[in-house]
């Protein structure tokens, strides 16, 4: 398989497959999450929910202006900007929108070139800072598992490769190679997101509800557990 045919495969059938896995996978975990919440809520007699607290705490972290600067301000700003670039650049990049238009005919407004340039560059810089931080800061290094490093590297790969292709003068063969890496990394991210911690991209808004219902214990659990323990199988 030549590089160009690999590129076609990666951004054609493989992309469609990985995108389908992403959507279906995220759909699955959202469904499971909501189903779990409904089931748990049905188990409890206490139906009163602290909606005001849930709403305000959820918003505080989705738009973390208030919380962000209170502690670990440098880390917080770096992390926020990294997340911001991570979401905005791939979705609003002119080249990506162009591909969607060519294949399925849909389009939406693109980022101006300069914005895309600086946003992509800042995402790379902040992502690298987070990676270094994970290795350098004692408590982060202690908590980190191999997948935490792997994910940062994987997420940065399409950014670095995309940035090279878009902004540097390189020969055609090297361009194609870099582009293959770019698309394959993107495909891999899509495939893995629903099965990894990056699922927080869709599950984070549920956290406060999960916490609130988690503290609502079902009535009769004490008797049920005693019964189970006393049963011959128990």
């Amino acid at each position: 398989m030549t590089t160009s045919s690999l590129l076609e495969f990666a951004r054609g059938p493989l992309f469609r497959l990985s995108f389908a896995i992403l959507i279906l996978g995220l759909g699955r975990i959202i469904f499971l999450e909501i189903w779990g919440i409904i089931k748990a809520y049905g188990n409890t007699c206490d139906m009163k929910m602290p909606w005001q607290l849930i709403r305000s705490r959820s918003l505080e972290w989705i738009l973390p202006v208030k919380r962000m600067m209170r502690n670990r301000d440098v880390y917080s700003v770096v992390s926020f900007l990294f997340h911001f670039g991570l979401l905005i650049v791939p979705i609003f990049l002119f080249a990506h929108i162009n591909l969607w238009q060519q294949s399925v005919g849909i389009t939406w407004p693109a980022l101006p070139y300069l914005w895309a340039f600086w946003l992509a560059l800042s995402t790379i810089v902040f992502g690298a800072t987070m990676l270094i931080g994970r290795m350098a800061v004692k408590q982060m290094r202690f908590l980190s598992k191999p997948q935490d490093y792997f994910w940062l590297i994987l997420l940065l790969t399409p950014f670095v490769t995309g940035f090279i292709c878009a902004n540097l003068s390189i020969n055609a063969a090297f361009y194609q190679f870099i582009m293959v890496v770019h698309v394959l990394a993107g495909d891999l991210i899509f495939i893995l997101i629903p099965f990894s911690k990056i699922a927080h991209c869709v599950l984070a808004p549920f956290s406060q509800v999960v916490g609130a219902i988690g503290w609502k214990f079902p009535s009769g659990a004490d008797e049920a557990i005693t019964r189970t323990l006393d049963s011959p199988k128990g």
Partner: protein
Amino acid sequence: MKITTITQEEHKKAFRSVKKPEVIQKQKLNVRYHVEDLDVSDRPRKFLEAFAIILKHSNYKMVLDHFIRMTARCSRCSVACQVYQATGDPRDIPCYRSGLLLDVYRRHFTLGGMLKGRVTGGGYLTDEKIQEMADSFWNCTACRRCVLECPLGLDHGLITHLGRYILSEIGIAPRALVVSTRAQLEGPFKNTSAIPVPALKDTLEFLEDDMFEEKFVKIKFPLDVDGSDYVFFAAVSDYLTEAESLMGIAAVFTATGDKWTIGTDYFDGINYGLFYSDRVLERVVKKVDDETKRLHGKKILIGECGHASRTARQFVPAYCGGTQALPVVNIIEYTHRVWKEGRLKLNPGVVTERVSYHDPCNYARNRWIVNQPREVLKSFCKNYFEMAPSGENNICCGGGGGTVSIDEIRPYRTTVGGRMKAEQIRRSGCEVLVAPCANCKKQLRELVEDQGIDCKVVGFHDLIYNAIEFDDSLKVARDEAGKEAK
């Protein structure tokens, strides 16, 4: 708020084991708290069985599934945790602590974990991992401050709670809590301090006499009054150690004339179930509800106790009838309401010291009782000031999560758990610290004593008692009072 980590000497003092080596060997468990004798064989299997049964009869599966899909291990929670800030040991980071139980869940209760375990042949739950959990979950004061700092909104307090619950099902729980709970649920006196009803009556009569001599007002502790508006449950230890708080509460009711009563069948608000077992939690909550219904009370009133108030408020609806459940009121809510209605007069000239307010975590973390006591205190304490951080972001006293009742870990509580709080009190120059929670009061008194801080710790109603002013109609003339006292 930044503090220095403990020195090696302090570390030795805080983490010393009080258990005899032969007990450690016999129990195969080296933790800092005493544990009742337990079956040591096949502990991992028993842990997993208990875990499975609990998952079957609870909502924890939904919580754990959410957690294992979410944890990003960013370590931001470490800045909020006063235990980690004191020890500097990364094993005290809340996210790591939760990870101990999440790893067990992932490995033994999820398909992916089980497959991975089969392939790699590792990750099994071992005695060593149980030992680490038994240590770690009781290092935490369950203050849930880390919840505010988690960008993903994960409640590590809930995971610590579950971890302790599972451990208790295999016999690993602090003896101090287990013995007290047994006295409360199965003992003849039905309370954690084993106070007999005649002794309770004697104590209350003695307090009534004291109040009469001091205030010239007949202030009563009404017992077993049927159909009262409020049935009162204090942390039972208050009857032994917090006389002024109780006197303040009785004084407020005398001033307002509202009907309240203490039931003699069951009068203990303490619920250690919140700290180690949902099964205990449920049984105790039902006892509180039963006693209120026996006396045909309209509302459950909880005294100055954070965990007792939170358990009643949060779990009476869950265990005792949902929307039909009896309303639960904390005494500070009541006092604040009657003060706002103008039914409580407080003398602004009595309290002159520099006074500040300590938020018990169980009141403030979920923004339940934050401003109410402050409004009242500011109205009559000339030199009231605010410590920072406070309210929702308060720093735990260091004795939360039941640890204050474990006497053998006092050096840990006052060196590690309360280090940040001690620093805050020291820096603020506070003279009188109002801590309206039985646990916080005990811990803070021990903390200021061990840390050599010159600060008096009192209850909210202690100050109310000092400052309360009664209508003349309630007062008995001095000479008459003298005769009655004789």
